[in-house]
């Protein structure tokens, strides 16, 4: 009797600590933020003292050209970073999918960039991009080319390059794992049927890897909206607003301009954007799966 009760309660006992902590430190703060976004709130006030202003913060942001600029920068950054990294990472995985000795050493080298602190990554790249003492300009100078103002004129490109350096290995390793778990029989069969390596890649490897690739891309996309420290250290959003992604703008609105309400409203916009992207991706995947299932069913009817 008492054992049965223990058994019925035990899942809750296992869940309880995690649920309590996530409720206190994630869900409650998120609710608090939504509540705070309707208020004119500065850091020295507690939220109760802040004046309720309704949707004012949201409307101000909606009409704020700086916010639009920052939104566009964020979307461009995320788009370029994810698509270039996917192409490079998957390409490298297809290229290096062979039984070579020392592959594990190679993979260790490749994951190094993403284990290092973003702050340090920003630091390294800021040094390398430095207009006079930086590695790149020294190199350009030594082969007789004009210097490039990396973090000035090409700031967005430069931070995209740094992010690609740091995160392409992530996609490379995941797609390599996916490649190596593909059924050997399908590849063998296609080889016997005389498929060229390119045909193998297009018609067998890529379609079979697709589920993993979609998850990987989605994870990278979500992470691309989290990038902040690298950019903070490299450019601090400048010059102008050219690299001020939303995460950075939120933190500056909160700490420099001391407008917590506006920052909270901005955070909400960002959350809604992420939610739409995630739901969109999942819906797309489901649609694809449903279509594939229909095609398969049709094929089976024919035979």
């Amino acid at each position: 009797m008492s054992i049965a009760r223990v058994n019925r309660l035990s899942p809750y006992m296992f869940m309880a600590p995690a649920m309590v902590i996530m409720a206190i430190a994630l869900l409650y703060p998120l609710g608090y933020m939504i509540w705070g976004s309707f208020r004119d709130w500065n850091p020295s006030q507690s939220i109760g003292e802040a004046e309720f202003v309704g949707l004012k913060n949201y409307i101000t942001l909606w009409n704020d050209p700086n916010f639009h600029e920052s939104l566009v920068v964020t979307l461009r950054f995320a788009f370029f970073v994810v698509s270039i990294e996917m192409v490079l990472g998957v390409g490298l995985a297809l290229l290096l999918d062979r039984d070579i000795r020392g592959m594990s050493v190679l993979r260790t080298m490749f994951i190094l960039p993403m284990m290092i602190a973003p702050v340090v990554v920003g630091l390294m790249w800021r040094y390398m991009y430095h207009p006079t003492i930086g590695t790149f300009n020294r190199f350009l100078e030594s082969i007789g080319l004009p210097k490039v103002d990396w973090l000035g004129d090409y700031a967005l490109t430069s931070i995209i390059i740094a992010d690609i350096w740091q995160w392409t290995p992530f996609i490379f390793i995941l797609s390599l794992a996916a490649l190596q778990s593909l059924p050997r029989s399908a590849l063998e069969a296609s080889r016997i049927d005389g498929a060229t390596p390119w045909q193998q890649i297009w018609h067998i490897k890529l379609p079979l890897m697709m589920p993993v690739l979609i998850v990987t891309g989605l994870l990278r996309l979500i992470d691309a909206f989290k990038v902040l420290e690298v950019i903070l250290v490299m450019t601090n959003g400048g010059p102008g607003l050219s690299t001020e992604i939303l995460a950075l703008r939120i933190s500056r609105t909160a700490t420099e301009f001391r407008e917590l309400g506006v920052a909270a409203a901005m955070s909400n916009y960002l959350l809604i954007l992420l939610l739409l992207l995630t739901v969109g991706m999942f819906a797309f995947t489901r649609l694809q799966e449903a279509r594939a299932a229909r095609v398969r069913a049709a094929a089976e009817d024919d035979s």
Partner: protein
Amino acid sequence: MQNQRANPAFFAVIALLVFMSVGPVLLMFANSFKLDVDIISGASGLLFLPTIQNYETALCDVLWYEPEHLDFCALKFGGAFINSIIIALVSTILTLVIGSMAAYALVRFRFMGRDTVSITTLMVRMVPPAVLLVPVFGLWNNEFCLDRDGLIGGAIRDTFGGRGDVCLAGTHSGIILIYVAMNLPFVIWILQSFIVQVPRSLEEAARVDGAGPFQVFFKVVLPLIKPGLAAAAIFTFRIAWNEYLLASALSDRNTKTVPILIVNNMSEFNVEWGVIMATGMLLAIPPIIFTLLASRQIITGMTAGAVKG
């Protein structure tokens, strides 16, 4: 698989890739042993006299001797290093214990609200730290406090003086709490895929022998998922060790972590490249060591998180 034979172009590609991914780190390593004069003149490249002066400057507050080239210890890196270690270690251990328990419950039990819990866990994974900044700053400073009129808060004020109310902001526990919460969804997600693989028969055997649910979990299940725990530990440690934004909002003078120190010293107009690179190197060393020792676990964890989610 036909061209197994050594193809020079293929190895050239690999060499280039290794150079590109490790090069910047090595460059920073080399620069951290250079004097600023050498970095700026740049004539040397690899020919320079290595010096540990930068490291001495960075660690001046924990060194047992006084470096000759310094008359004042401005950079309190040693203290920040200790803060970082405390925060990263405690939050990693807490996250692992709490997260593995929750993952076990989600995998092994059917209970009311299970689906809600697992969807919520997935959803909060996508919340960027920047979004948490505003509410966490407000809550930790204003709401999660021991009241100045209450018993404990009053006692603390009487003994230590100060503002009277004791808030989570500015304490190690405040930063640890948010790191644990931030990492939990990820750890739960990863560990689920490891716990699924534990054979149920083992657990049932232990139960027949009279072990309670907690004994089964800690003595049977946990030892079997050690690789998963290692992977989760490395990822959690990495985030707690590297995080800047929330720590900078929540810490005060005495609880600063290393990333905050680096950013504070970068934003000034005149960057002391040698010292800042030495600091960066010290911050990068623990993750580098983990990578070299446990790259297999890291890769398993990464693929488990993405592929089997």
